């Protein structure tokens, strides 16, 4: 969690939820993100840890399509803010 703390100190306040996706990628991680963000209130922030090499491209694209906000990306950490309903 030292890396996570460093990432937070570098520009983000405490997120509402965390998700350690490990090596999960492609459709598996985004469908899990869909479910997890759906369960959070609008505006809530989820910090994601994921090591899949496709995530630096996939998560910005997924956020553009779904309307969620990628607040910052510092692979393997990403902070996503849930869209309004």
């Amino acid at each position, binding site marked *: 969690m030292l890396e996570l703390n460093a990432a937070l100190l570098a520009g983000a306040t405490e997120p509402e939820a965390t998700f350690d996706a490990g090596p999960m990628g492609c459709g*598996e991680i*985004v*469908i899990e993100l*869909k479910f997890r963000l759906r369960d959070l209130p609008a505006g809530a922030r989820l910090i994601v840890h994921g090591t899949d090499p496709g995530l630096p491209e996939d998560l910005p694209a997924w956020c553009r399509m*779904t309307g969620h906000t990628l607040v910052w990306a510092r692979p393997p950490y990403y902070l996503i803010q849930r869209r309004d309903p």
Partner: protein
Amino acid sequence: MSDRFVVSLTHAKDNPDKATVAFVVANAAAASDKEALVFLSIEGVRLSQPGYADDVHEAGFAPLRDLIANFAKAGGKIYVCSPCFKKRGLDEASLVNGATIVGGAKLVEFMSGGVSSVSY
């Protein structure tokens, strides 16, 4: 651009790698707020049967059973080719969540107007 996305899958246990990746991509579409559809034809129709995919788990991927269940949970639809289904004598009284047996007209209707698709 259409908000629909089709994944066409013609394989089941004859090519579990393709079957798995097809549903991974379908999950990506469903997760991305697309009206996502998996069209199962040829051997792929076997995946419409509950329990069939239980022992398919490709290395590096989630179990196929979970991928199919998550796709339906996210609102994805599964169209099952009727003649392919009948040819194989499968059980139409028992289908996985999200699955519907259809003929070609239903698929053509869904794809009319221009829809992005990928085939496995």
